[in-house]
């Protein structure tokens, strides 16, 4: 398997304190990786570096054999829903189609292919019936699906999700993960989470991130999921020295 993301000795400073230090990370094609860590541990910063929204203070990042900036178009990004204005007047289908908007799209409507592709994606994620709903009329799980649909519009090779299940209940959370598992058959998936318990049944790798990082293959973590969950923090702390 080829590496789709490679971080070498990546350090990043917002200020005087490092937000990330000497991060070495390899993500292979079709990995399903969870990035776990405390708030302020640098999870979102790492994602922003991979997306080329930030540049490392030192070290190198290679995405799909090129720079993060150039690789962007092949990455689907699903930000945390909390970042949006809850009352923004926009319909589900418009949000999804926006992925195909270019600076030089002069005609004030989308080409037929985009409409068709949007319908197809909405159908795939089972939210076709919500296409004309206003975004703030949806449940949290449906909003999350909308953002995932938007990211899938461009058929990306890598899908990155920032806490996709932070504000949804456990049943819906399972639906979202099942859906991601399905997508994982063709795409590399990286997701930020702070809950290893649920995630560990789905992912094949876990990266612990707290300024420094340490990656585990999921089958190298001993014991059943419940065991790991109960002991996880201590166990992983010990193993990574974080």
């Amino acid at each position: 398997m080829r590496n789709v993301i490679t971080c070498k000795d990546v350090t990043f400073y917002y200020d005087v304190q490092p937000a990330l230090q000497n991060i070495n990370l390899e993500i292979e094609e079709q990995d399903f990786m969870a990035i776990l860590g405390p708030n302020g541990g640098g999870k979102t910063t790492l994602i922003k570096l991979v997306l080329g929204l930030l540049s490392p203070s030192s070290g190198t990042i290679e995405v799909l054999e090129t720079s993060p900036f150039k690789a962007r178009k092949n990455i689907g990004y699903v930000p945390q829903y909390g970042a949006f204005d809850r009352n923004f007047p926009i319909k589900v289908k418009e949000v999804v189609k926006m992925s195909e908007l270019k600076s030089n799209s002069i005609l004030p409507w989308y080409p037929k292919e985009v409409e068709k592709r949007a319908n197809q994606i909405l159908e795939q994620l089972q939210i076709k019936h919500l296409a004309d709903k206003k975004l703030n009329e949806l449940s949290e799980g449906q909003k999350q699906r909308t953002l995932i649909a938007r990211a899938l519009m461009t058929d990306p090779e890598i899908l990155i999700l920032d806490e996709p299940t932070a504000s949804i209940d456990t049943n819906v959370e399972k639906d979202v993960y099942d859906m991601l598992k399905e997508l994982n058959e063709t795409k590399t998936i990286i997701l930020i989470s702070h809950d290893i318990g649920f995630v560990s049944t789905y992912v094949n790798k876990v990266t612990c991130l707290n300024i420094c990082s340490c990656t585990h293959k999921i089958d190298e973590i001993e014991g059943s999921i419940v065991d790991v969950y109960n002991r996880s923090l201590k166990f992983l702390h010990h193993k990574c020295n974080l």
Partner: protein
Amino acid sequence: MSGFFDALLHHSFLQNALFAGILASIVCGVMGTFVVIKRITFISGGIAHAVLGGVGIAYFLNIEPLIGAFAFAILAAIIIGLVKLKAGQQEDTVISALWAIGMALGVIFMYLTPGYSVDLLTYLFGNILMVTKSDLLILVILNVTILSVVFVLYRQFISISFDEEYSRLRGLNVNALYIFLLILIALTIVVLIQIVGLILVIALLTLPAAIAGLFTRTPASMMVLAVILGMLFTGGGMILSYEPNLPVGASIIILSGVVYLVALNLKKMISKK
């Protein structure tokens, strides 16, 4: 009320005023929608007050005040846009400073110009009844310009308003679009200052759009409703102020404000049911 309509038939200054109100309502509803959904009321306030600096300097140099107003509005839009994109957390402090410096410049230069006092008040509170034929022409040109640009870049502006980071990731030139949007808002503000003056301009820019936002599902329908509301408010304000001879600008704003409060409560009642 019939007194107003009688006068409207006979006085061309009233016809001009009504026409100006209608034209201003169009750009106001369209750009006000962006101000409301992108939540840049404070930035717009900064631009509005910086305009006074341009007006003051224009008076002092004895050139057309409107030219000074446009120049400063565009300059303020560019500076504030760059500050927002580069300064991060310092943003509101810098905008407040520009806000005050613009006004202070205006006051000083107007003071240095003989016969300043009447004009200063006109700019602070506006006077729709003094709109001239050439003002109307400028309004028409601005309407056409702003509406054509928004027609073409509507989705891009909505995209950067909804999710700036994602727009950037998808390759949109977010910085340029953002500054361009601010410039269009700045031009709109200059137009509106003539109607209600710079103290009240933000209310006229945001209230119709805010009311429209309560009852619509897309930015486009929000714009249409905001335009209609703006026309009703400017027209209604003129009618209400005519008999008791009240200041028109302030009457327009009071009317808009009252309708906004009623609409907020109405919306609450509807969503409770």
